[in-house]
């Protein structure tokens, strides 16, 4: 090897997640209990939200991070759901889970606040800087979604970007409306 060259040797590789087999939402049977939220730092909320206090409402969790283009392009759809269904019983909660260590700026509350303002996000967001909620729900991709019914049961999960009025948007819309009417 010449002096001008650098050899790089791989010692070990880890991919967070495996190749996606399904992108669309999949029903999860009659539902399983949704793990409680224990995050302590929140935006667009005057106190930490807990699922136990949201019984009787449908809850859509959106696992995202503001550095993910697939996530930010999905936000207009979530803002639309929030506008249409909040008064009918839907609570959307953003679970903001950084990808990189703190040096990348994703952990910073001010950066997240600016991202929420830039995207017009009015629904609550939890800072999941230690990935406690990400891990509790077994999430592997940005963005991911968990739809919880009025009893606190997980009914649908899925991942992947979608856009206003595309097929996935309509699927999630139908599922939200279904749970709202139960």
């Amino acid at each position, binding site marked *: *090897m*010449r002096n*001008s*060259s*650098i*050899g*790089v*040797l*791989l*010692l*070990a*590789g*880890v*991919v*967070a*997640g495996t*190749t*996606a087999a399904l*992108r669309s939402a999949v029903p999860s049977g009659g539902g399983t209990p949704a793990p409680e939220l224990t995050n302590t730092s929140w935006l667009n909320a005057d106190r930490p939200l807990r699922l136990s206090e949201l019984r009787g409402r449908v809850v859509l969790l959106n696992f995202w991070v*503001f*550095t*993910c*283009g*697939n*996530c930010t392009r999905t936000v207009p759809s979530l803002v639309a759901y929030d506008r249409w269904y909040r008064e009918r019983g839907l609570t959307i909660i953003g679970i903001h889970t950084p*990808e*990189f*260590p703190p*040096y*990348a700026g*994703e952990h910073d509350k001010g950066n997240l606040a600016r991202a929420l303002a830039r995207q017009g996000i009015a629904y609550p967001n939890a800072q999941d800087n230690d990935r406690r909620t990400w891990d509790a729900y077994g999430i*592997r*991709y*940005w*963005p991911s979604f968990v739809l919880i019914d009025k009893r606190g049961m997980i009914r649908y999960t899925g*991942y*992947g*970007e*979608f856009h206003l009025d595309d097929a996935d948007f309509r699927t999630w819309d139908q599922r939200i409306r279904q749970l709202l009417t139960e």
Partner: protein
Amino acid sequence: MTKFVLLVLATLAVAACHGPPPLVALEAGPPLRLVAAPGVRINARLKPALELDDGTVLRFDSPRVTSDSAYFAAAPTVAAPLSGRRLGTLRLSVCPSGQRICRLVEMAVAW
């Protein structure tokens, strides 16, 4: 050989078992260069990082990004220290276009 290329891919163990093709290759130059596989985009809003064993963090970058600034349009590079044997962790966010998601790739490297 003016450019030594070795590489290193997101799915080391999987690739060794004839699994899916690697998502990205790290070319040793200098400078170090990240090359994405076809259909794989590297997140430009979260610049790939090489975390050295002494705590230094090197960030890959490229002046060419997509129009929405979400992905690199040309392979990002970074100048690597040339002296001594080094260990580090390469960390990047990849967004395969067909899957409409981003995921984190981490790998240990040495040179």
